[in-house]
């Protein structure tokens, strides 16, 4: 039985606040605080994993829902945060001021994301989304003596605020047309009303606001700059956590109140078109990039396209495919980011040329990194293939053949630049011979991630059974 005080967001927020007080009062060392943060997150993971989502469905006067999907996404965000915190620990020496606060703000952002996965009301959606976004404004600009980081912060702030404005405007129209901000009431109103332009306008504006977060073409322009300028752990958090947060909202809205056939006939073509554009543009624009973070930003745009394609295809299967794709993306992308952090610990890690001959210098980084790249490219037997495979099946089933063709073409383009990184690591000679020191614990983390890329990719039954159980298959 979960009461209000037992919800994971509540626990995490309280814990983060206590950490803040602890930090202010006793001034513990950041390393210790990071360790405690990690412990809290792991404990929370166990707690959420053991909880039963059917026990209490709606909390807080129905604004908050606690169902299987919410549980899945909460676990997703906890795992993401754990890995992000690990990456922060690796790069702690690069943070000049406020090392402890970095962990704490990350926790607040994580609790905002977890809250988003349970949202049932436009007002709560807005506020929780802003909690995430404002935390990210701070995190992105955290290297405050580096121009790039500050600029990224400014760009993210302006873009984020514009997208919030669109979101509010859209929510306003939805509220006006349906007389309520609650998802259930909106769905009810939509079923009883004929299709009105103000509903479509409201939906369109809300979607624009969310597309900014997921970085869908043409609302992606901020992503490359921000990914490049932000500190590496934040880039990872943006790429995985923030994107998934946008996706969970899209799922909640589009498969909830807006799932009706009539509305769907409006948003499906729009999403299909944008998804197609994102796949193609993201993957082709990534090819000439020489900065790895920037490349991953463009590739992230491409992945957003695949996720949209999953949402577009027929509802339940598409949803399951999106969840599977997100899991595969989490594991593969975080492997790459943690490998980058481990390298960044001893020097620069952004530019592709820094990876030349890495297989000789640091096989412990090169192998997981290569696996992550190959998995992002979607080559079997890595886990990334399962994601692409399920998405492709969903697209074919919903008969969006043009989307399918775009997916195939962009997957090939993706292969080109992902393998380009692998090529740099394995076929070129290193510029210097300095060995890269990787700590034992990081080796374990990277080893676990690599193993799960291969093992879950090959033995995918657990992944499928988790997702299948959410939708009652």
């Amino acid at each position, binding site marked *: 039985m979960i009461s209000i005080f037992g919800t994971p967001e509540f626990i995490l*927020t309280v814990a983060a*606040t206590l950490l*803040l007080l602890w930090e202010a009062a006793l001034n513990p060392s950041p390393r210790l605080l990071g360790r405690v943060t990690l412990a809290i997150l792991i404990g929370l993971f166990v707690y959420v994993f053991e909880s039963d989502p059917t026990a209490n469905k709606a909390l*807080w*006067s129905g*604004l*908050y829902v606690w169902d299987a999907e919410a549980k899945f996404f909460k676990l997703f965000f906890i795992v993401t945060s754990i890995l992000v915190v690990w990456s922060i620990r690796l790069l702690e020496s690069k943070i000049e*001021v*406020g090392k402890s*606060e970095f962990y*704490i*703000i990350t926790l*607040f952002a994580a*609790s*905002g994301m977890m*809250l988003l996965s349970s949202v049932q*009301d436009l*007002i*709560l959606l*807005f*506020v*929780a989304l*802003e*909690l995430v976004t*404002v*935390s990210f*404004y*701070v995190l992105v*600009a*955290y290297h*405050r003596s580096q121009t790039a980081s500050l600029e990224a*912060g400014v760009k993210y702030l302006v873009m984020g605020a514009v997208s919030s404005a669109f979101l509010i405007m859209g929510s306003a*129209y939805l509220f*006006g047309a349906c007389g309520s901000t609650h998802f259930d009431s909106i769905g009810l109103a939509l079923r009883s009303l004929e299709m*009105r*332009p*103000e509903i479509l*306008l409201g939906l369109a504006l809300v979607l624009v606001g969310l597309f900014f977060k997921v970085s869908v073409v043409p609302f992606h322009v901020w992503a490359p700059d921000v990914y490049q300028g932000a500190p590496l752990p934040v880039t990872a958090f943006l790429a995985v956590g923030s994107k998934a947060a946008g996706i969970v909202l899209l799922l909640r809205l589009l498969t909830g109140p807006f799932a009706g056939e009539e509305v769907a006939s409006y948003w499906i073509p729009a999403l299909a078109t944008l998804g197609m554009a994102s796949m193609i543009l993201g993957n082709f624009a990534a090819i000439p990039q020489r900065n790895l973070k920037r490349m991953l930003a463009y590739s992230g745009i491409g992945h957003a396209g695949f996720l949209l394609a999953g949402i577009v295809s027929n509802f339940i299967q598409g949803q399951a495919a999106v969840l599977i794709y997100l899991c595969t993306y989490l594991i593969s992308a975080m492997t790459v980011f943690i490998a980058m952090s481990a390298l960044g610990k001893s020097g620069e890690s952004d530019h592709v040329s820094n990876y030349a001959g890495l297989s000789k210098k640091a096989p412990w980084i090169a192998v997981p990194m290569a696996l992550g790249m190959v998995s992002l490219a979607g080559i079997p037997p890595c886990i990334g293939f399962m994601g692409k495979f399920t998405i492709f099946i969903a697209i074919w089933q919903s008969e969006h053949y043009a989307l399918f063709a775009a997916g195939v073409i962009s997957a090939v383009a993706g292969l080109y630049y992902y393998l380009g990184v692998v090529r740099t690591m394995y076929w070129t000679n290193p510029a210097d011979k300095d060995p890269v020191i990787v700590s034992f614990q990081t080796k374990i983390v990277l080893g676990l991630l690599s193993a799960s890329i291969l093992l879950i990719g090959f033995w995918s039954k657990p992944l499928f059974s988790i997702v299948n159980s959410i939708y009652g298959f």
Partner: protein
Amino acid sequence: MESLLFWFFTFGMLLGGIGVIANRNPIASALSLVISICFLAGLYLLLNAFFLAAIQIIVYAGAVMVLFLFIVMLLDLRAEAKRPFRWGAFFVGLVVAVLFFVAIARVTHSMKDRFVAAPFGNPDNITAIGNLLFTRYLLPFEVTSILLLVAMIGAILLSKKELK
């Protein structure tokens, strides 16, 4: 009477908005923003939202504007020097803004007859707001407090001159 006030407030608000964009001097922009916001508060009054009108004046015209002006003064930002007019950005901005406006106007035009003004309700709607805010919308309210906490930490971290 009501319609006269509406046009008055609306034009004031929009002129203030234009003033924000058109002024080269950030201080003048900030003052135009204050004007715009005060006229907007007038519109809120017309819409029977007295509490929000008050908040609007206090928070925006009071706190936020002071923050803006404080920064402008602190950093000693002067009026920008004359430089070539940015035609490209001007036209892109114009096209986007006009397209957006046309979309809104067309949608609202179609809904002309569906919403009729309800009679003025109880002018004392603060009770209703308070009730909703602390019962139904308690969760977002709490989240907002965390949000402000994060913003506060962030603002200190980013702008404080010397940190340990």
